[in-house]
């Protein structure tokens, strides 16, 4: 106590809705903790790509002399080495969301579960389309987490009559969701459901569906738990019957746990895995944060 503790927080830049949420919750947590614990200092850096993030880590160690690092890697493989170097420099390391490619580097691991995210969505499609049906998938960006989600989803619907008509990258982006969905709607006269994997993408896709006046013919599941989408689930919108949570708030949890390690002397360690629950009208209230920008 009394001694100044510096915690470095490194997160991806806000280049789409979910990372925007991450940045927001990280800043909230930092502000809150700084107020509560005057001896806590934070260094918050956002990075657009793994190279920049590795540089940020170097700067935190070389010039800011951090005591602990909370990091959500933009990508796991390239950052495993740089994070290990931070660890080797004797810092406490908390890794968020993305599993490093080498075991045992981090002290604390707080994560969502991407395969689980895909599986939950897949199971939902399976149950909602017991007799099979035609679906299209708007996937994210060509990144490992996207692969994990899509693979798990396809595993979950394997063996059913749910047929994937088309799959295209929509980059977790609204405009791309709109465009790809428009084209899918032109191409396939009968679509029963859409897995958009991300709420931003889903919002774009919904506009395309509305424009084609086919909003009565299909439903769509996004992902991550954006407030607008949860509101729709809550309101029993038939177009959006459910959502799959992937809470960007996990970054706040990670930062708080890390801070507690120093402030309360609690030996925080281990793995905190946040499952990706299915959000349905029944439980939507729990996930609804109207003040969050996400």
């Amino acid at each position: 106590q009394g001694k100044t503790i510096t915690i470095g927080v490194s997160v991806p830049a806000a280049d789409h809705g979910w990372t925007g949420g991450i940045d927001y919750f990280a800043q909230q947590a930092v502000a809150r903790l700084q107020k509560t614990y005057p001896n806590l200092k934070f260094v918050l850096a956002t990075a657009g790509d793994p190279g920049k993030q590795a540089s940020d880590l170097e700067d935190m160690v070389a010039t800011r002399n951090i005591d602990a690092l909370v990091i959500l890697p933009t990508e796991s493989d390239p950052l495993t080495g740089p994070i290990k170097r931070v660890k080797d420099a004797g810092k406490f390391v908390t890794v968020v969301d993305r599993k490093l490619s080498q075991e045992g580097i981090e002290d604390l691991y707080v994560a969502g579960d991407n395969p689980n995210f895909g599986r939950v969505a897949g199971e939902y499609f399976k149950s909602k389309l017991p007799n099979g049906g035609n679906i299209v998938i708007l996937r994210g960006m060509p990144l490992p987490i996207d692969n994990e989600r899509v693979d798990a989803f396809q595993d979950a619907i394997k063996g059913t009559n749910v047929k994937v008509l088309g799959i295209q990258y929509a980059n977790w982006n609204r405009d791309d969701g709109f465009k790809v969905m428009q084209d899918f709607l032109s191409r396939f006269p009968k679509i029963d459901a859409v897995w958009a994997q991300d709420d931003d993408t889903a919002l774009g896709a919904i506009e395309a569906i509305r424009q084609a006046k086919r909003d009565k013919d299909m439903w769509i599941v996004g992902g991550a738990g954006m407030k607008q989408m949860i509101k729709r689930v809550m309101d029993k919108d038939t177009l959006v019957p459910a959502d799959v949570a992937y809470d960007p708030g996990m970054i706040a949890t990670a930062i708080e746990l890390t801070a507690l390690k120093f402030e309360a002397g609690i030996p925080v360690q281990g793995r905190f895995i946040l499952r990706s629950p299915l959000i349905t009208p029944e439980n939507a209230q729990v996930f609804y944060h109207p003040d969050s920008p996400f």
Partner: protein
Amino acid sequence: MTVSTEAPAPSASPPRRRPGVNFHVLGPLLALILLVVLGALLNDQFLSSGNISNVLARSSFIGIIAVGATFVITTGGIDLSVGSMAAFIAGSMILAINYLLAGMGAGWPLVLVGMAVGLGLGLISGAVNGLLTTRGRIEAFIVTLGTMGIFRALVTWLANGGTISLNFEVGDIYRPVYYGGVAGITWPIIVFALVAIIGEVVMRRTAFGRHCSAIGSNEQVARYSAIHVDNVRLLTYVLQGALVGVATLLYVPRLGSASSATGVLWELEAIAAVIIGGTTLKGGYGRVWGTVIGVVILSLIDNILNLTDVVSPYLNGAFQGVIIILAVLLQRSRKGER
């Protein structure tokens, strides 16, 4: 659904310069026709009026921006900031509308005020780029690279890293601006066509257009010919800004939101469209109708890739690349022979 038997009409046929086939002139058009044929062969929905309308409406933002870029590039400049500028304008416009909602109530007046804000911001942003380039004597590439970062940061900051969403009620009023139209043609297409036609006329038939290409061709000659080089330059950036504003007016009602992801890489797409259309990157020669074809070509590539699954989606980018190069190769092929 009616299927038109002909290719989506390019906004203007090439001016007949001189007799004989001129590949430099016809190149982009030919590339477009080939793409249309390819699309029609691959998918029978491709020529449906719905699909054509979708593609053209989607092209309209980039298209309107690219018309502005044609002037900037013809004058020998470049504007890398347009995508970020669009995001910034969209964000500010939405915030302004949401803010004024309490006072004015949802309705067309509010939407019109929002539009005015968007246009005004476009003009101002363009003027900033233009003044820094002409009065500050900084290379346009650097100025607009800088303002690109600045606009992008501003919208991220305004959005708190998230998304700025238009109030639903206003959104419903504003929506028809993207989705509605007259005689089956939606507004974005109409506005795009108007901008393109006016742009072509300005480029080809007015002193301003002539001055642009004179400056791009040889700035000294332009100066010695009593052209106010700096003013014309400035004006191209202001025009570019205004057109980004117009594009944003059409963009906002589409999804009713703006975020830091809005408009990413639009600048590259706009510049690519301009150059595919036959305008020279170093300035001195520009043609708006070519740009329009360039924009449509770029949109069609995406569209065709979405309408088929010939290839792994991983390779989409490669196909885009190949087609862009081929489109220009076609146009240049006869040039080497001269």
